[in-house]
């Protein structure tokens, strides 16, 4: 089952909603997480009914699914961010807002409406805060149930409910109708167990998923690849839970570059999903590497292909014969990955016989450690001859000897005779050795 990726409109705060939906749909997203806000379907506007009807039409025309998000910063109070919450004296305004959100979600046929607890004000005790939260949530959940909208409650770092354990406590108070919105990034920031484990725990209760990168202990939504999360196994774990709802990118601080960020994000997620699925196949059948290795570029794109191939090979851990077959039947990109991930002297020798600079460079990595000195020197000499930088040669400082110095000096002599020069790094080495 393939995951359905969406994008949060709070990451398109500088776009008109119709324009944001155009860009998101054109990029290939399946849906949007629609944050109700002053510029994007304002629940307090006089013409809210028209706005909702128009939004429903825009979504339908673009075949976008939708979840409704309620995390707008200054929609209810222009001076206090996120206020009032369930935990403030004027909590009924929050409840009223969430009921409006439920109504809008019902009109839009949204897959869920998402909400959170709020930060506990200093003057409100923990016991009172939990009581206020449970009462408010119960009212919202009952209202949502009447209208057939799934209520997804989101643990949010720094708020009263900030972990899955907190959410479980709230559910015990409110009842089983309370469902879950999970932000994958938050799991990395503040959960006591790993992200994959969080996903497995959350799975049965999920009605909405947000996704972004993050670092441990820092609640900052980051673009994919700039935080600490290893997404391929996380996406696989999410698919394994049987979750079929939207997985929407949550990057509310990237509106300034929204179209580019959204494009990069989908490319990243599709690649991560492919790699996660491939690693899962290899875990069940290591021989699957034979057809996954050649497919890696199509799965993850050219730029990420080599890292993906190496990772697949490490996961498959082929024996010497299997590695030799992968090398034999591989194209030169696959051969290079085998040389990097699971080299053997015979494969290194084959690569050093080739005229492909990328293979020769890979062959002179750690894989060349078991080559006898004479062959290793010939390899280094050939790489200099081909114009490769010596910085890529593994263990050069320890293995370079006077014989290599002599060979390099001879090459320089020939080059000078022909009026050609030697690369500076080779000159430096031979002068040190000779």
């Amino acid at each position: 089952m393939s995951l359905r990726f969406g994008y949060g409109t709070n990451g398109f705060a500088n776009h008109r909603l119709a324009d944001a939906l155009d860009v998101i749909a054109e990029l290939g997203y399946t849906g949007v997480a629609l944050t109700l806000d002053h510029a994007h379907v304002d629940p307090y506007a006089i013409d809210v009914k028209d706005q909702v009807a128009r939004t429903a039409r825009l979504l339908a025309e673009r075949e976008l699914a939708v979840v409704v998000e309620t995390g707008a910063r200054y929609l209810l109070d222009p001076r206090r961010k996120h206020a009032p919450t369930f935990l403030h004296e004027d909590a009924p305004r929050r409840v009223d807002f969430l009921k409006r959100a439920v109504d809008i979600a019902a009109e839009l046929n949204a897959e869920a409406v998402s909400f959170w607890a709020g930060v506990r004000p200093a003057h409100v005790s923990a016991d009172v805060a939990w009581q206020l939260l449970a009462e408010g949530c119960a009212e919202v959940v009952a209202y949502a149930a009447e209208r057939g909208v799934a209520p997804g409650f989101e643990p949010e770092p720094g708020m009263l409910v900030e972990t899955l354990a907190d959410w479980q406590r709230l559910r015990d108070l409110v009842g089983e109708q309370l469902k879950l919105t999970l932000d994958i990034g938050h799991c990395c920031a503040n959960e006591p167990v790993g992200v994959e484990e969080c996903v497995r725990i959350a799975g049965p209760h999920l009605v909405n998923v947000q996704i972004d990168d993050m670092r441990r202990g820092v609640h900052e939504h980051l673009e994919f690849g700039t935080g600490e999360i290893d997404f391929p196994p996380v996406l696989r774990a999410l698919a394994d839970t049987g979750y079929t709802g939207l997985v929407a990118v949550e990057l509310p601080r990237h509106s300034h570059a929204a179209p580019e960020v959204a494009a990069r994000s989908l490319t990243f997620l599709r690649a991560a999903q492919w790699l996660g699925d491939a690693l899962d196949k290899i875990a069940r059948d290591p021989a699957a590497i034979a057809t996954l290795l050649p497919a890696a570029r199509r799965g993850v794109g050219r730029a990420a292909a080599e890292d993906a191939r190496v990772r697949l090979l490490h996961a498959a851990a082929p024996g010497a014969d299997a590695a030799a077959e992968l090398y034999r039947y591989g194209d030169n990109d696959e051969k290079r990955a085998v040389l990097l991930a699971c080299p053997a002297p015979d494969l290194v020798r084959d690569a050093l016989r080739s005229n492909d600079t990328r293979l020769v460079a890979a062959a002179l990595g750690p894989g060349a450690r078991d080559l006898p000195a004479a062959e290793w020197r010939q390899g280094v000499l050939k790489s200099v001859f081909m114009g490769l930088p010596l910085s890529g040669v593994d263990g050069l400082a320890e293995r370079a000897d006077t014989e290599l110095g002599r060979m390099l000096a001879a090459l320089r002599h020939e080059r000078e005779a022909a009026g050609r020069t030697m690369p500076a790094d080779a000159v430096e080495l031979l002068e040190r050795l000779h």
Partner: protein
Amino acid sequence: MRIFDPHIHMTSRTTDDYERMAAAGVRALVEPAFWLGQPRTNPGSFTDYFDALIGWEPFRASQYGIRHHCTIALNPKEANDPRCREVLPLLPRYLAKDRVVAVGETGYDSMTAEEDEVFAVQLQLAREHGLPALVHTPHRDKVTGTRRSLDVVKESGIDPGMVVLDHLNEPTVGEVAGTGCWMGFSIYPDTKMSPERMVAILREYGLERMLVNSAADWGKSDPLLTLRTGEAMLAAGFSADDVDRVLWRNPVEFYGQSGRLDLDEDAAAEATFAGNSILRGGS
């Protein structure tokens, strides 16, 4: 006129051909794996050939701005040799490669039991790998062979839209039209089809699911007969758009089902393949 030759054996052609093809408007092609005019005797000579089809040959084509793709299979003629059938377990490794856009050529040569089996196995491989299948119809007893091929296709469960029956002619086209399979025609200087006969078939059967190729190989053949067919279509009153449909959009649609066509106009050709070039006297 932009031309996509959906069936041509460039391994057997010279760089002069590439030059003439590029000048004639050929921008992309598919080279099916087939026999080499002389029998092979072990699986290794197949895999070396396959390696060239995904390696050296796309590089040669790229030097003339032509996008090269291939199909991989054990051909029907050599399916009869047990030494060659040993290549079958190796096919999945090659069917997973980037520029492999179909399983083929498969089908019948002499309609033996061995050919039956290899044909069926390879249609299943096409299904497993999400690839179209290129079916070679036999040179002898062609009508029977075409009917039998259609039966095997039907039995396999493969979507007929993922199958082309190739080397069709007047006696066999009617068997395939209406089955949902694609119809391939090889235009040859003397045998098989001529441009004029091809035009008559297009008039009678329409342009949908029609593929026209040169099938040029090591024998007497002409890589420019695709162009000549386009010219004959124009002379017979077909529009430029009709020609574009048959010679470009149809093959793009058929092989595009693999998800692996690479028609990026802007991609620059590499100067060498694995450090080797086509410039004699160079590296």
